[in-house]
């Protein structure tokens, strides 16, 4: 049976996040030929509708309101529910981002339905689809089946390939007016800490440092390498515990789980908790002075050496490759 699928898009700094396009691709997989409707919520999002269509949405619904400038579960919840009631979709997809994680359980609870969170792959299509998701931070995986009429899941960024952008695609964009009231939370201030705007969970390249980085200043060459590669900086728990960096950078079983195309571990020994957070990365490079370090067991390429020598040399080499 074909399903009408509602996909919540997400913008950051005025641009749609990749996970929104990945969610559209996931929607096509489960729709069985049904309509894929994009939803955009914010204070000024109409200009983003076209791009959702170019990535495969059939049409887009926008909800704009000054109170939706910042994400709040109340505000976005009201906007979502208004569109849900109007569209009556058979499937709903969110990105498993900070805001998606925050909002999706509220909506599932409101609708009295199940929610399959943090999906990394979809097996099969349409009604028979099974949803693969990591458990124990990626030490194992489970395949989950939906038992309800409404299918509701969230997808982990960077795992499901988006469709190719088709600038020739067109579709309708309509706006729905929703009275956003009774917000119980007020966002007073937002402090951007992440460097260069690349989010750790969505980054294609992650350069992570451990105790071997030795100080907060020691992260500088890692940041330079990450910036050069358009990536983000991460850290092991050891580096966070030693106050070399903020806990928001921590990768591991406590902390973030990342699956970039390239993971560069510098001065990280490779505790089992850290490996849970990164071992499903596509290509892993380990740089460590200790040839016995555990991290070499999961690394595709390893260099035994001092990261403060190796990283600057890598930066120079990569610059050469990039200019050629």
């Amino acid at each position: 049976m074909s399903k009408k699928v509602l996909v919540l898009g997400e913008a950051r700094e005025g641009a749609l996040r990749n996970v929104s396009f990945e969610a559209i691709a996931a929607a096509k997989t489960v729709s069985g030929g049904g309509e894929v409707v994009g939803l955009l919520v914010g204070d000024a999002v109409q200009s983003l509708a076209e791009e959702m269509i170019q990535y495969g949405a059939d049409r887009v619904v926008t909800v704009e309101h000054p109170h939706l400038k910042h994400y709040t579960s109340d505000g976005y919840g009201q906007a979502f529910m208004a569109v849900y009631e109007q569209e009556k979709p058979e499937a709903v997809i969110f990105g498993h981002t900070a805001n998606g994680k925050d909002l999706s359980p509220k909506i599932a609870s409101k609708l009295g339905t199940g929610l399959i969170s943090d999906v990394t792959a979809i097996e099969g299509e349409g009604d028979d689809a099974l949803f693969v998701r990591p458990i124990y931070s990626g030490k194992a995986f489970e395949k989950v089946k939906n038992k309800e009429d409404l299918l509701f899941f969230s997808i982990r960024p960077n795992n499901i390939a988006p469709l190719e952008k088709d600038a020739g695609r067109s579709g309708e964009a309509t706006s729905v007016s929703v009275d956003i009231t009774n917000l119980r939370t007020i966002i007073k201030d937002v402090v951007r800490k992440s460097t260069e705007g690349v989010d750790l969970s969505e980054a294609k390249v992650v350069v992570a440092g451990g105790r071997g980085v030795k100080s907060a200043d020691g992260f500088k060459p890692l940041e330079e390498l990450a910036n050069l590669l358009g990536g983000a900086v991460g850290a092991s728990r050891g580096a966070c515990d030693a106050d070399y960096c903020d806990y928001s950078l921590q990768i591991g079983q406590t902390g973030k789980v990342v699956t970039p195309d390239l993971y560069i571990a510098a001065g990280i020994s490779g505790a089992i908790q850290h490996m849970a957070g990164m071992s499903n990365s596509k290509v892993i490079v380990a740089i460590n002075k200790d040839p016995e370090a555990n991290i070499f067991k999961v690394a595709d390429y390893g260099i035994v050496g001092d990261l403060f020598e190796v990283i600057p040399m890598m930066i120079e080499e990569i610059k050469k490759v990039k200019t050629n």
Partner: protein
Amino acid sequence: MNIYALVKRTFDTEEKIAVANGKIVDDGAEFIINPYDEYAIEEAIQLRDEHGGEVTVITIGDEEAEKQLRTALAMGADKAVLINTEDDLDEMDEYTVAKIVAEYLKDKDADLILAGNVAIDGGSGQVGPRVAELLGINYVTTITNLEIDGTSAKIVRDVEGDSETIETSLPLLVTAQQGLNEPRYPSLPGIMKAKKKPLEELELDDLDIDEDDVEPKTETVEIFLPPAKEAGRVLEGDLADQVKELVDLLNKEAKVL
């Protein structure tokens, strides 16, 4: 303040995971309080010490989870509640758990409910917000700071590395992110005292819950391990040559540059 902390018993993070007969092998595994729930318990204790009141820790599971509740009591929680579902339920999902917790909490007049932002086993992070929605109260997830003044709450929320400063009011549910506090280890006197603190055990009947009302909405059909990652190549030779080779491999073989 009437404070509740939601606690889950999970595998120790040191544990390797093995699968047999389609299930995670838990024989001989070490269990701990989910690390994110430890932040919730610690914050609950600190808030009680500052504002007065009582901290109750709640878990759902079998009697094995008593151990984790005793640990929470030894940290300083006042009371514990185990909702034992061993005889009633074979399968649970987040819908099930949230419904049971909310059913327990609905007439407790909680001022503040704290939980971990995610459990390191299931990893979905759904139960906190679901419970808040069922109780009709507000919630904020992944918090790294919490100040309570009367019925107002000032919160810092971690949003993928950015920090949001949020104002809201009680009653409230929050989920803890790393960095919220430094959970204490139970002291020896704490452990002695914990043995005498009240630990109530309830079953679904005691909460007037029918098994059909909490039937899971999703079903796990298979559990599997990721393919074992093979150790790759440790490069050799002069360091400068190694770096050249590495960049060349990343560029041409792995094609990730």
